[in-house]
C-alpha cells in the first residue's frame, strides 16, 4: 500500500495499520486484505461485486472494518455488501470510502449496503466519505444503506462526508419492527461547486419502535445540498428528526421534511433550521482571541462534531 492509500485509509477508517478483528480492505476495485474471526465471516459474492459479512448470534464487543479506497483515476465501481447480523449481537461496523483522484478521469464508488439485524442485536455503524486530489476528474460517491431491524434491535449510524466529494447521493432506508430503534447522525460539508443529496427514510412498522434522525450540513461557496427526511409511523411509535444547516457564501440548501402517520398512536416530530453563522457567535470567540476565520472554523467544526 502506498502513502496515498495509507492516508485514505486513515481518513475513512482512522486506521494507521491493519485493524484488530475482522476486516476487508477494498483497494482500486479489488479486495487486497481480509481477516475473519471465529464469529465474523466475510465471503466474496459470486454473482456480483461485493461481500457478505456474516456475524454469528451472540457476538459481542467485536468490530468489522470494510473500508474502500480508490487512488487510480477512472475507476468506477458498484459494490454490494450485505450484513447478516445474528440475534443478540453487539458489534461495531466501520465502513467508508476514500477517493484520491489526481487524474483527468472521473472516479466513482457506488455502494449498496444491506443490513439484516436479527432480534435484540445492537449495531453501531460508522461511515466516512473523503475525497482529495487535484485532477480534473471528479470524485463521486453514491452510497445506499438498506436496513431491516427485527424486534428489539438497535442500530446507530454515524455517517459523514466532510469535503472532497464532488457529487453524492446518499440514501438510507430503514424498516423497524416492534421495539426496534434507530439513531442516525448524518453530517456533511460541501464547498466549491460540490453537490450533495441525502435521503433518510424510516418506516416504523412495529409498536414501541423509535427513531431519531439528526442531519447537520454546512454549505460553503457555490455548493448545493439537499436533505430529505421521511418518517412513516405505522404503529404506536415515536420518531424525531432534526435537520440543521449552516449556509455560507453563495451556497444553496434545500431541506424537506416529510412525516406520515398511519396509526393514531404514532408520535412524530420534525425540526428544521437553515441559517448563517450568527455574528454574535463569531464575536464571542473573537473576544477570546480568535481571528474571524479561526472563529468560523471552530463553529463549523463544533457543529459537525
Amino acid at each position, binding site marked *: 500500500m502506498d502513502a496515498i492509500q495509507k492516508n485514505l485509509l486513515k481518513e475513512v477508517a482512522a486506521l494507521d495499520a491493519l485493524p484488530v478483528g475482522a476486516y476487508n480492505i477494498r483497494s482500486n476495485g479489488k479486495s487486497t486484505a481480509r481477516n475473519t474471526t471465529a464469529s465474523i465471516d466475510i465471503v466474496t459474492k459470486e454473482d456480483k461485486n461485493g461481500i457478505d459479512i456474516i456475524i454469528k448470534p451472540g457476538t459481542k464487543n467485536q468490530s468489522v472494518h470494510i473500508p474502500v479506497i480508490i487512488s487510480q483515476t477512472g475507476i468506477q465501481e458498484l459494490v454490494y455488501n450485505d450484513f447478516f447480523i445474528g440475534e443478540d449481537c453487539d458489534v461495531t461496523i466501520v465502513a467508508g470510502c476514500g477517493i484520491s483522484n489526481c487524474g483527468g478521469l472521473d472516479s466513482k464508488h457506488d455502494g449498496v449496503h444491506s443490513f439484516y439485524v436479527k432480534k435484540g442485536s445492537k449495531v453501531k455503524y460508522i461511515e466516512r466519505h473523503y475525497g482529495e486530489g487535484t485532477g480534473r476528474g471528479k470524485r463521486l460517491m453514491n452510497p445506499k444503506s438498506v436496513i431491516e431491524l427485527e424486534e428489539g434491535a438497535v442500530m446507530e449510524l454515524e455517517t459523514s462526508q466532510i469535503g472532497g466529494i464532488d457529487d453524492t447521493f446518499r440514501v438510507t432506508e430503514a424498516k423497524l419492527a416492534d421495539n426496534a430503534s434507530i439513531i442516525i447522525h448524518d453530517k456533511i460539508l460541501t464547498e466549491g461547486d460540490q453537490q450533495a443529496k441525502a435521503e433518510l427514510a424510516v418506516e416504523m412498522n412495529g409498536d414501541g419502535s423509535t427513531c431519531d434522525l439528526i442531519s447537520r450540513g454546512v454549505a460553503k461557496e457555490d455548493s448545493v445540498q439537499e436533505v430529505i427526511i421521511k418518517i412513516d409511523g405505522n404503529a404506536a411509535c415515536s420518531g424525531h428528526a432534526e435537520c440543521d444547516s449552516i449556509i455560507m457564501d453563495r451556497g444553496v440548501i434545500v431541506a424537506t421534511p416529510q412525516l406520515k402517520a398511519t396509526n393514531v398512536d404514532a408520535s412524530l416530530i420534525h425540526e428544521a433550521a437553515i441559517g448563517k453563522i450568527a455574528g454574535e*457567535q463569531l464575536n464571542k470567540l*473573537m*473576544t477570546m*482571541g*480568535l481571528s474571524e476565520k479561526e472563529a468560523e472554523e471552530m*463553529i463549523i467544526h*463544533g457543529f459537525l*462534531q
Partner: protein
Amino acid sequence: MLKLENISFATDDKEILRDINLTIDDRFVAITGPNGSGKSTLLKVIMGLVQPISGRIYLDGEDITDLSISERANRGISFAFQQPVRFKGLKVRDLLELAGGRGKNGNEGFVHACKVLGEVGLCAKDYIDRELDDTLSGGEMKRIEIAMAAARGTKLTLFDEPEAGIDLWSFQSLIHVFERLYQKTSGTIIIISHQERILNIADKIIYLKDGMISEYAEGKKVLDQLALDINPVAGTDNLLGDIAWKEVR
C-alpha cells in the same frame, strides 16, 4: 490604563454616546445608570464590538481604536456578554481551552480555567463535555460566560451586567470571582451593574445618563449623590431608572 477621548456613537435615529472623555486607572470600576443610557454600548466600544463614529481609545498608551476585536482580545481585553451566546456542537471544554490560552502555558491555563468554572459553582468535571446549546439553563450559560472571561486573566476585563440571571447563592460566588481576578491579574475590571453589593466594592463608579458621564468619582461619593437625587420624598425624578433606589441607599 484605559483612556477614551471624545467617543461618540449613534445609530440612524439616535445618539447613544455623546463625546465621552474618560480615563480609567483604578482597578475596579462599576458603570451604572438608567436603561438606555449607553452603558452596554460603552463597553462594546472598548471591546471593538461596535465602532464609535468619532473619538479614540487608548490602552496603556496604544491607540486601539482601529484594532479588530481579536487584536484587542490579544492585547489583553476580555468581555463577558450580558446575554451569553449559545453554540450547537461546541462544548464547555472548547471555551475552557480558549480561555486557558490553548496550551500556551502547557496545561496550566486549561486547569486554571476549570478552577474558575468551579468558582462560579459549576464543577468542571460535570460540565466539560456539555454542549453550549439550549440544554444548559440561562443561569448556567451566564456563569460559564463570566468564568471564561475571568479565566483569561487579562489586564482589562469587561462584564456587562454579570448579575442578571444569577441567583442569590451564586451571587456570593460571583463577588469571589471578581475578588480573585482582582488579586490575580493586577489588571482592571469594569462592570456594568445595578447591584448595590457590586457598587459598594467598586473603587470608582461611573454614572451614565443619556449617553454622557453624569458622575465619575469614588464609589461612596457617587452612591451618596445618587441616593440624594432619588429621594422620593423630595419628589425628584428617579435618575437610576431601573435601579431600585432602596438597594442603592
